[in-house]
């Protein structure tokens, strides 16, 4: 018995050493690496876009590393799968406490970015959001929370700006006589976009006929919404959808012959998703999506970025066998901007240093991937004017940049949309 316990005493320190050294091993191996945490929904209902975003991020990371990395160090990350808000919070905690990361990037969705960034803020580390648009994200007073993409207010604003600047001329309807209707899913993304758009439309004197919210997880039939729109006859429908509901909406619009002069939706998950065009075929033609550019007029962006943009798109299409998609573009651009910031800190992830570097970054529109610029506000939000957004249109089975004019690669078609029976 005594011998056994002595042996046990010998074994325990040995075990402790083995366990301890394995736990610290990654730290030692990280001398030449900058390791961050990445959260994306890779399972669950929005996994398709989460996967695309991660793909875009990986391409940007590989390009950064091929070009010498950040201050001579390679950028690496550990990925957490966050299908829902609870997972977002749990995985953020795990990445910080178990993986020891000092910066987290992610997360595609408005339902994920808020809980994930709260965990980061509690731990006083930097949270770097690439694509959620919840307007509340940047109004919580967190010092080390940044977002490279615009917020839903920006989405709503750009949607209406497109109508004001160009669509009204094409349709020959004065802004003050324009009738718009909003159809929107009811999460932070939909509500934020819709409320901001509605406000802006009313400021410009447009008539807002209706605002219809629905729950995208249980929406199985758009008949009630479509019949209302058929009787109120809006000129333009401004929709905020996720992907499966966007497909169902437009499929049923055809079935029920909803005739409208134009339909717009902001965001990479809606009409901007490749699945929208694939699912609807020629019925998708003429639909507008406010997203990242599918090819830009090279004259409007810096030559260096034009070349880089083309390179990322080329690699994406070769690797994933689909066109460079909006979710991926958001991921790639966000990582690229992060790398620019970390170059300024020499790879240091200290929250104060990252903040100082981020706030000092000042890049005009056209100077970044996606043709974006960068200027973070003190709230950590990249200003909406710098995050140039583009109106794309489904033409011949692909999304084409049609607005703003200086970035456009093709003229708009099908304005106003022809009747369903005439297509």
């Amino acid at each position, binding site marked *: 018995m005594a011998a056994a316990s002595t042996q046990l005493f010998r074994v325990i320190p040995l075990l402790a050493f083995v366990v301890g050294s394995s736990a610290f091993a990654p730290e030692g191996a990280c001398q030449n690496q900058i390791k961050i945490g990445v959260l994306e929904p*890779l*399972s*669950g*209902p*929005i*996994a*398709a876009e*989460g*996967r695309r975003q991660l793909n875009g991020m990986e391409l940007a990371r590989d390009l950064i590393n091929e070009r010498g990395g950040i201050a001579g160090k390679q950028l690496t990350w550990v990925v957490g799968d966050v299908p829902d808000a609870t997972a977002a919070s749990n995985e953020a905690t795990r990445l910080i406490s178990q993986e020891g990361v000092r910066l987290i990037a992610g997360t595609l969705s408005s339902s994920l970015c808020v809980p994930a960034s709260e965990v980061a803020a509690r731990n006083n580390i930097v949270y770097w959001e690439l694509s959620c648009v919840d307007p509340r994200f940047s109004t919580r007073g967190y010092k080390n929370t940044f977002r490279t993409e615009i917020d839903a207010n920006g989405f709503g604003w750009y949607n209406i700006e497109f109508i004001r600047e160009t669509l009204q001329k094409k349709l020959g309807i004065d802004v003050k006589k324009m009738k718009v209707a909003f159809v929107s899913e*009811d999460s932070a993304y939909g509500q934020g976009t819709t409320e901001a758009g509605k406000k802006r439309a009313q400021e410009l004197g447009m008539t807002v006929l209706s605002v*219809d*919210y*629905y*729950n995208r*997880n*249980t*929406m*199985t*039939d758009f*008949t*009630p*919404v479509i*019949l*209302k729109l*058929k*009787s109120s006859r809006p000129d333009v429908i401004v929709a905020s959808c996720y*992907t*499966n509901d966007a*497909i*169902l909406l437009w499929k049923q619009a*055809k*079935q*029920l*012959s909803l005739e409208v002069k134009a339909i717009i939706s902001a965001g990479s998950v809606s009409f901007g*998703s490749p*699945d929208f065009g*694939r*699912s*609807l*075929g020629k*019925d998708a033609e003429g639909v507008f999506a406010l997203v990242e550019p599918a090819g830009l007029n090279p004259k409007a962006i810096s030559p260096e970025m034009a070349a880089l943009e083309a390179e990322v798109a080329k690699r994406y299409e070769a690797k994933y066998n689909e066109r460079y998609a909006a979710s991926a573009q958001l991921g790639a651009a966000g990582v690229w901007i992060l790398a620019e910031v970390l170059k300024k800190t020499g790879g240091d992830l200290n929250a104060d240093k990252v903040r100082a570097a981020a706030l000092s970054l000042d890049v005009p529109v056209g100077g970044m991937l996606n043709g974006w610029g960068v200027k973070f506000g003190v709230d950590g939000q990249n200003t909406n004017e710098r995050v140039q957004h583009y109106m794309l249109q489904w033409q011949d089975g692909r999304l084409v940049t049609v607005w703003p004019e200086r970035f456009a690669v093709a003229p708009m078609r099908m304005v106003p949309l022809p009747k369903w029976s005439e297509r």
Partner: protein
Amino acid sequence: MDALPQLIASAIVLGGIYALVSIGLTLIFGVMRIVNFAHGEFLMLSMYLAIGLSTMIGVDPYIGLFVAIPLSLVFGAAVYYIVVRPVIARPHVVQIFTTLGLSIVLQNAALFFWTANFRQLRLSYGDQVLVIAGAAITMPQLIAFAVAALFTAVLFAWLRFTFLGKAMRATAQDPKAATLMGIDTGKILLIAFLVGTMCVCVAGMLMAPLFSTYPTVGLQFVLVAFVVVVLGGLGSAVGALVGALIVAFLDVIGGFYVGTAWKEVLYFVVFIAVLLLRPAGLLGQRGAEELGR
């Protein structure tokens, strides 16, 4: 008012779709007393099957049914023997975790094999619209409703007029007494599970042309299906159809007059009211509501 014919037609069609998903569930839930959380994933798998048959060998989903139904029986039997049977006599918590686990496994398997992309089965005649009394209905919708009505009728007749059906209802009402009367309840449970799986498979095949297919599509319909099943009465095929039509009418007509944001409020209010007045559901038989055996 000219919207009314279309609203009614859309509600009937949607009710047919809800009924298709719910009929399988009402048998499994009602007779076996197992809450099959993987029901939605069975639906998802058959939607992928419809797409697979169509894209790989060019088989229309309606002809594909002749392949899908035998497959669903094999699949149902496998799930029954491997997953369900070992937990039939166990507490409800064990059953819930088992079927929930199965649902997660199937969802992630679909994610792995077919990615999370949204797919749409497109039929050459899928967009053809028939105008009936001022209401526009597509062919796939009409077929889905017709099949739902047919299935309800056949199941109703089977449960009511055949010996096996009677044995099944007896098992739903009181499994112990049924055993004492000489009913092989083990066999009845297997049959209930197989018929339930077959029904949801048919539902998936018919829904693939109507809705996007993706790994979590089942979740979109399974909550409604549970509401329908409890509303209509556990184990009752006609109850499932009636429940499905009620929910669909509240969805569509309530959505039009009150607002789509309110549709769940509407049907849950009705749901609660029905349960207060008729705990066994609208057409449920007495005894069927007692979940604890």
